């Protein structure tokens, strides 16, 4: 089954109401910014759309109401065309999977679904695949053909080298020269300090950042027993240890790392969502798109 078909089956056919909510959530997130932008910038009148509860009443077009008794609001191209950059972590660690799919396969599915959603709500979406470097960068565009191109590119992505999120995101930041949304899909197995620095830089460049932390259920429990020779996926030196003996320590370290990530994101105003690979993709996506504090219940 191709990525297209997976996305269609697992996400688009099932989202329905979730999609609408997600669209609203996106718009509401950016509502404040767009207002400030409109004051100072010339924007192109894009047309009317029906009034929906929650719209700013000052945007009602009273002339249309006078002529047609319809409540329509004026929309401008700049405020509705959200530029989203999906950053996919394709480092070696993303190749791990204890269940039906690896983290990378799950992340690719997630990214593809996000791409579809963004374009369907008339937003522009781009893709950056990173590991220790920026392996590829497709600038945002708002056409379905672009999404297909993006998905085709995702099909070819394989897990690569070591993780270097911080430096790579910092190198990617200059390419994001227009306000928008950056959604980082990663397992975040990297130095939190350097990642925090990169996130801060993106925020400084007026990017809305969301981090979707992808984690495998096995990575939370460390399901191995007995004497192990552990081979890393990013060319680390093998280590020998007793699985039962180190499990507790590992879980402690993982918990501390994730806590540090959460603290860093919270301090930077970055929304962090954790999605497990054994979780329903659609529900996970809905949570990922929900505004802060108003997540969709699973």
């Amino acid at each position, binding site marked *: 089954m191709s990525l297209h078909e997976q996305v269609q089956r697992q996400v688009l056919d099932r989202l329905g109401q979730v999609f609408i909510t997600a669209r609203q959530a996106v718009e509401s997130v950016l509502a404040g910014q767009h207002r400030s932008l409109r004051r100072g910038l010339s924007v192109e009148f894009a047309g009317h759309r029906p009034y929906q509860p929650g719209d700013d009443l000052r945007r009602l077009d009273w002339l249309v109401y006078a002529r047609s008794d319809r409540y329509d609001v004026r929309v401008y191209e700049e405020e509705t065309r959200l530029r989203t950059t999906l950053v996919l972590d394709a480092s*070696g*660690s*993303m*190749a*791990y999977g204890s269940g039906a799919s690896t*983290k990378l396969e799950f992340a690719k599915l997630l990214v593809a679904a996000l791409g579809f959603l963004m374009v369907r709500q008339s937003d522009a979406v781009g893709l950056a695949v990173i590991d220790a470097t920026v392996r590829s960068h497709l600038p945002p565009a708002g056409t379905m053909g672009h999404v297909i191109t993006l998905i085709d590119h995702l099909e070819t992505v394989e897990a690569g080298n070591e993780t270097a999120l911080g430096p790579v995101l910092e190198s990617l930041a200059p390419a994001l020269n227009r306000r928008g949304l950056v959604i980082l899909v990663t*397992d975040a*197995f990297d130095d939190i300090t350097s990642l925090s620095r990169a996130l801060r830089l993106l925020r400084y460049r007026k990017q809305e950042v969301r981090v979707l932390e992808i984690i*495998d259920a096995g*990575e*939370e429990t460390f399901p*191995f027993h*007995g*004497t*192990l*020779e*552990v*081979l*890393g*996926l*990013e060319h*680390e030196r093998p*280590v*020998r*240890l*007793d*699985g*039962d*003996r*180190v*499990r*507790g*320590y*590992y*879980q*402690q*370290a*993982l*918990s501390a*790392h*994730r*806590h540090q990530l*959460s603290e860093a994101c919270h301090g930077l105003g970055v929304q962090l969502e*954790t999605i*497990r690979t054994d979780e329903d993709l659609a529900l996970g996506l809905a949570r990922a798109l929900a505004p802060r504090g108003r997540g969709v219940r699973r």
Partner: protein
Amino acid sequence: MIEFAAPMYVAGAAVAIPLLLHIAHRRRYQRVRWGAMRFLQRILVDRSRRLAFENWLLLLIRSLVIACLVGALMRPQLTLRAAGLGDLIPRSGRTAAVLVIDDGLSTTSPHDAPALTRMKLLAHAYLDTLRPGDEVTILPYSQLSQPLADPLVDLGAAHQAINHLQATALAGDVPGLLEAGLDRFAVHLNPEAELVLISDGRARSYGLDDAERWVRLRARLQTQDDAPLGSRLRPHLIILQPPAPAQALVNVSVDAVGVDRSLLPPGMPVTISATVRLEGPAPATGLLVRLLIDSRAVEERPLSLAPGEQDTLVFSYLFPSPGSHLIEVAIAGAHDAFPDDDHRALAVEVESSLPVLLVEGRPGHGLDGSLGLVAAALAPDAPEPDAVRMPTGAAPAANAGHDLFQPLRCGVSGLTDERLSQVRVVMLGDVPALDAGAVSALERFVAAGGGVLVVAGEDTDNDIADRFWWRGGDGFLPARLGVIAESGPGQHPRLVDAGSSTLSELARAGQEPWNGVSVARCHPLEDLSADTRTLLALDDGSALLIDRLRGRGRVALLGCGLDGHDSDLPFRPVFVPLMRSLATWLGGAVLPSRNLLAGDALAWLPPAAAAGAWPLAADGPHGGSIALAPSTWAGRPALVSPPLGEPGTYTIHEPSRGATVYFQVGIDPAISQLAALDEQRLDVALAGVPRHVVHQPRHVAELFTAAGNRSWDLWQALVALVGLLLLLESLCSWSMARARDAPRTADGA
């Protein structure tokens, strides 16, 4: 002091097992691929010392568990010995006791209070000093040759084994018992060893006259001086024996019964002698010595003996018919300490004639031939000497002649196994050579008990004789045969050694009968071995007639011919008694023997005519039946019984002739020597060997004392320690796991 009841080699497992398990476990790694390596690497950096400590701690605890388990199996004992125990035997740990018991026939004496009963009381008293966990071996003398069972740890079973002891017909052997007892400790495990000799205290059983044997035994008991006294290499020696009677026992015994000749012909009076001995301080009066022939009393004699006196009674009896007969001498009215030796029997074979095979190198008729004169000397009354010339394949006829000897003449070709099976004596007369088959047949004949006289005349080839009959001393010929040569003038034979009692008749006649005999020429007899006996020698000292035992039989060698050419001996009066004596002496033994000792097996050679109708059992004393199994004796088909332990008369009924064959199992005359052991002589025999001697059961327990000694079995403590260590290991593992348990993640997942 901590002692171990089990061998120390087990301790190696305590060290090796956990290490081997640890190494084996570490060699098996499960390979896995993992994405979150940074966290594992952080653990190894941050927690390496703690992980190493936990590893070593668990290894130590597990090693201690195995060491304690192994240590518990080794049954250690902590002993604090009390001081000042003196000569007593200290017992602080588990004891390995070997009881060697003389169950010989002498233990049935005295008749009114058998020593065996008191020996059992002593044995029980000793067993009562043992404790649960001690090991016991009960080793009667009669069972030394049997496969032995494992040591007993059930003291009740040991007491029962003592109760079931019965006296046997064997003569005791204390040195043999002690040696067997020392060997027995090799299968015991307990650390403290005690060798307990339980005997009736008879001097004969100790065999102190065999000084060399006691020297070897003492050396064995002392060679392990560096081993502590009371260890399995050097056990405590305890001698338990009833006290010597206040007065020496009075015992009358029939020590020997004999006849005056090897061959017993029917119709001729036979002199039967019986030696009766009185041991003890009191005289024996009013005794009645009874002679029985085939269980039928034929004569009685009164007898009185002074203390220590020995008397030989002589009876005369004429056996009316040939066959197997039983001569018994019994003493009635003795009322002595040991009734079993008041009776003795002798099984004899009365033969109408003794077949003698005369193999002539130069066959002849009548007085001619190599052994014609010998045949005439053996059977002078034979009407037709040629009539008894044995045709090939024919069996010798019973009573073919009227004389005791039945000479059967044949040539060299007539020397076959079949013919040899029918005779007991063979004489080779001037035989130049024998083929290999004949030599082998002769060898087998002699080994089975037959007698051979080799007469070396002028036709005897000394080279062939040396090469094939003497073979450097390994052949049947008792000496190397030199080239026949002139003896020199005036060489007369003279009797040197009478040999058996049969030839002693010639010795009583003195030298005079030989003075008229001259030997003109003879073969020198050379390279006589040490076991060769010279019966006749010439005046110059050279041997003329010699003999040597070989197997069960004997071979005699005469250096000159008996056809009158080499010597005038055949024409002298002494020739006839010489030949008849030689024939009797060579063929007088009836084999297999019918007079056995306790422990011997009965063997009987059934006649060939009885094949297919062999009896399957012999009748034992008191009506018992003894199974007979087809087997072989000296290479011949025979019926053999199992070892016979009960003294008495055994009979085989021969259906083919309707005859009864008697066998008798007697007791060793030495058993009748009931004199008590001279303990001073025992002190000399066991000089330097610590030992304890106890005579009364109530004094046995006083040999040992554990009072003042305190000992603790540590195995229980070790087992408890194992439990504690396992609990500690569990606590450590739980604590380590708890310390490693990850707290709930911050996002609530």
